[in-house]
């Protein structure tokens, strides 16, 4: 991110200085002005949405969803421990609800409790990353709120397209992963699995809470 930011800003500033030097500095301040306006809007959006998530958490709805996902997860991620299944279902359920703050620590714990081939990511680990990256979105709340705040006539009408396009990307991700891992199994016969599954470091103490973002 640092390299990308430096490069982009530098090139833009050089261009600006050459083309219209009087605009260079005001442009930067205008940028932060936009950021301040957006930050205030986001405070309002998140105040409502985080409250809703708190209610979902307090009533145990997120746990119900993760329990409902359990049979499916067992089928997708073959050969993991119960502990790993727990973390994976919490991770995927909270990701579907857009609760990045819960999804991230659960994801770290899930990877830590999965069987490992040493330095190479296992097929199941990759599958977890891909499903997270393409995660089905049940309610894209932040986006809906931003559209509403900017005067959209029907801010929630992106609900169905979002759901369908994420469903398509998640399904195709699972299909590609499964195809690639089948191919991989033909190429090598692996005995390292059993050796490594015995070693299971304790990650529970180490994780930090954070947003699914940077």
């Amino acid at each position, binding site marked *: *991110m640092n390299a*990308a*930011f430096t490069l*982009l*800003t530098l090139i*833009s*500033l050089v261009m*600006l200085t050459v083309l219209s030097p009087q605009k260079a500095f005001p*442009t930067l301040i205008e*940028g*932060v002005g*936009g*950021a301040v306006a957006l*930050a205030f809007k*986001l*405070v309002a959006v*998140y105040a*409502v949405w*985080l*409250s*809703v998530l708190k*209610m979902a958490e*307090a009533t145990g709805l997120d746990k119900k969803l993760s329990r409902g996902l359990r049979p499916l997860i067992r089928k997708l991620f073959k050969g993991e421990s119960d502990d790993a299944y727990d973390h994976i279902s919490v991770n995927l359920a909270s*990701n579907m609800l857009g609760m990045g703050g819960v999804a991230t620590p659960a*994801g*770290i714990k899930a*990877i*830590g409790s999965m069987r*490992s081939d*040493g*330095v*190479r*990511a296992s097929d199941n*680990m*990759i599958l977890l*990353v*891909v499903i*997270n*990256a*393409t995660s089905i979105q049940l309610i*894209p709340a932040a986006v809906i709120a931003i*559209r509403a705040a900017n*005067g959209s006539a029907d801010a*929630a009408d992106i*609900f169905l*397209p*979002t759901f*369908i*396009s*994420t469903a*398509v*990307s998640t399904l195709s991700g699972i299909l590609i*992963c499964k195809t690639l891992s089948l191919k991989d199994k033909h190429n090598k016969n692996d005995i390292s699995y059993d050796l490594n599954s015995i070693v299971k*470091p304790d990650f529970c103490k*180490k*994780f930090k809470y954070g*947003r*699914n*973002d*940077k």
Partner: protein
Amino acid sequence: MSVYILPVLLILLIVYCAVKRVKVYDCFLAGARDSLSLVKNIFPYIAAIFICIEAFKASGLAQALADVLQKPLSYLGIPSELAQLIALVPLSGNGTIALLESIIKDCGPDSYPARCAAVISGATETIFYIAAVYFSSSSVKKLRYAIPVSLFCTLMGAVVACALCRVM
């Protein structure tokens, strides 16, 4: 129809809270409190990305990039206004929100590019961040095909999103 989705879900949730004897007022207090600290934490990222976007647009580079990408993106059915968004999506969630806001401002909230941008922002995740953080406390170093497959599927999702926005 879709106007009813969120309010009805919210009503159901509050009723469910009442049945389960969850303190709704306390939930709102906690949510509002978390919101302030969350925005305080993400503000630096938003400010940085806004400075970058503003300079990028004012220098004419954004237009140049859009012009270059117009052809390849149009084959995929993606409006050229979204070129920057698609490049930013796997890197930064706050950046995506910031860029979405500026696309909505430029094109109008219910225009075709703005709706596509909204769906893409809602449907995508920060792939590089997920990959880096999830493996941060594990000994795994080689991610093999995880990132290429994630990126490919995200792009496919974006293409589907733009197609859906034409008809829905």
